[in-house]
């Protein structure tokens, strides 16, 4: 009894997969996977927003305030007596971590955002490694780090506001940057990866699990051609050729792999 049922189940799964693959093939190249359904309170808010001007205005204000708060956080310290340690204060305030050149101690804020002032002992020393993973760093915030001309490692794993424009700004580190980790950043696309062309000194690059990159296999090969001295890590992608969207890209991929 169970055997025909299991085969039916498998048949349904396969047909669902086929439908999914068929739908993907007809999607435009920039289509992202369909978003998950909204929770109930959000659906109610959406319903009210479409019917009442006041609620639409309040929701608009809320998103504007959120954007302003993000910009305010990223502008960095304003007082003049902190001008020598702007980058350090900025990194610590956003809950990142850094390491000075020539030392092995890392300075970080704790889980409540408090940090000790003992990093001020090494005021003049340049930063060598900065870890801003899972922080709210964005394009505006990068100018606080731009003065660090001996930065060797920059980790930006899982930063929700790191986008293509941020990557284009990284040219300020073109002489010194050797390691860059931009994995799991949801806003980076292929156009932004083209901006990494300026970082000719890059030795290690991590571009794993970038959700907006289609045809990851081809993009990784093109990146390897663009940065020949760089070791590129790209895990978390399904590099199966049958899932690629568009025959031309598949041909190109197989040609380049040869």
């Amino acid at each position: 009894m169970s055997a025909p049922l299991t085969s039916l189940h498998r048949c349904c799964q396969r047909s669902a997969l086929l439908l999914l693959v068929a739908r993907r093939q007809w999607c435009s190249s920039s289509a992202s996977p369909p978003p998950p359904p909204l929770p109930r309170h959000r659906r109610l808010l959406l319903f009210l927003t479409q019917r009442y001007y006041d609620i639409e205005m309040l929701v608009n204000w809320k998103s504007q305030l959120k954007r302003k708060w993000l910009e305010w956080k990223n502008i960095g310290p304003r007082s003049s007596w902190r001008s020598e340690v702007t980058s350090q204060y900025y990194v610590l305030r956003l809950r990142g971590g850094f390491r000075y050149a020539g030392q092995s101690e890392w300075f970080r804020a704790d889980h409540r955002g408090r940090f000790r002032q003992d990093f001020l002992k090494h005021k003049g020393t340049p930063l060598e490694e900065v870890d801003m993973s899972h922080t709210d760093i964005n394009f505006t915030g990068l100018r606080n780090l731009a003065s660090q001309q001996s930065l060797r490692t920059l980790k930006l794993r899982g930063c929700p506001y790191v986008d293509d424009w941020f990557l284009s700004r990284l040219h300020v580190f073109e002489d010194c940057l050797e390691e860059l980790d931009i994995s799991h950043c949801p806003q980076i696309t292929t156009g932004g990866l083209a901006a990494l062309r300026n970082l000719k000194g890059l030795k290690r690059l991590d571009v794993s699990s970038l959700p907006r990159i289609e045809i990851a296999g081809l993009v990784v090969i093109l990146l390897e051609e663009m940065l020949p001295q760089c070791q590129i890590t790209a895990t978390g992608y399904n590099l199966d050729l049958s899932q690629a969207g568009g025959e031309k890209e598949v041909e190109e991929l197989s040609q380049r792999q040869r």
Partner: protein
Amino acid sequence: KTFCKCIQRRITGGEYLSLCQAAIKKKASDALPGSSWTPLLVSPNLPPARVDIVIIGGGVVGWSIAYWLKQKEMIREGARILVVEKDPMYSQSSTVLSAGGIRQQFSLPENIHLSLASVNFMRKINDYLGVMNEDPVDLQFNQSGYLFLASEQGAQIMEENYITQRNAGAHVSLLSPTQLKQKFPWINTDGVVLASYGLENEGWFDPWTLLNAFKRKAISMGVIPCHGEVTGLLRLCGFVPDGITVCVEQVQMLNSLEYQPVECSIVVNAAGAFSGKLTKMLGIGSGPKDSIAGIPLPVEPRKRYVYVVNCPDGPGLDTPFLIDYSGVYFRREGLGGNYIAGVSPEEAEEPDTNNLEVDHQFFEEKVWPVLAHRVPAFEKLKVTSAWAGFYDYNTFDQNGIIGVHPLINNMYLATGFSGHGLQHSPAVGRAVAELILDGNFKTLDLSSFSFGRILSQEPMLERNIV
């Protein structure tokens, strides 16, 4: 009618009765109160009879102006704005047929500031043009930069331009031929003395997405779109002694004889390649030779070809938008080894602008030899597709005309950009909105782009045009 159908299809009596019943029911329900049936058929697509501002031209500049006007108005529904576009398919519009590049490598500081302002707008495009509960705008911006190559004659100009660009805030770097060869091994540096490379804020994007983003946001803020052609502009006499005030227009609906006169107080001419025709309707250009009325608006359409080529061994992901000193340009398109190439023809060999037919011989003679010389891998390429589009070419000095026309008191011009209208559209839209609502420029001073320079015959020439 149903009886004829009955005879044609030989249906039975019962079916005929039910058909008649259905027809009677439909007519009765249409005539009942609460339905939209009227004995006098009014076309639902006609524009309103009275608006405040009419923007003629629904390209990216026109919709950008509409968006900024709504953005800047102090109260909701403060200004009624109508955008008239004669081609809902955008088949001849310069916006959608453009190569979509944006650069800061100009020689005039005003152009550099316009580009920088536009790029800042595009970086935060979802803050400006995001509509609630709709998909976010994805311009598909490729951050690949522009690369200008200069021969011996142009090297001096390139150095001077570089200083202007750095002073204005653009991130550009100069490269020698050796550095160029190191950075891009696929280039043949024969004849190149200096190269100018954009490090940031330069690249290309999808113009259709930008146009639709402006349109969607402007319509959500209350701008009225209209698909029709402006076939008549009426002068109002008696208000100002020297000068025309344009007030009432004739908007002709597409493929029909219906037209609607639209009363308005301000007209914005953003018609792109067809702006010259609009001012001709008012007699500008056919007055006596030494008067202002004798000087026509120097904007005319110029056809430019764009060819899509496929070269599997071509340059990779870091291909910039390369512009050779001969004028030939190319850029990468997608990831499949496709490139877009073209060149501006010589003045004497300008193609005919009656249609958008492509001349493939032009590619073989003018574009391919230079491409193959500059990038040896392009010797083995195949042309897969081509299209042609119009530049709204300013025959006077190839730069935009922004401001009020000296004779027509309420016509604002925003046209004549000669190939860089798309990249300047957000900033130009804001400037024209400031001019209309605030009376003068607030953020960027574009008074040097006014029509006055044409009257005083002082051209603002760019030293690099493509």
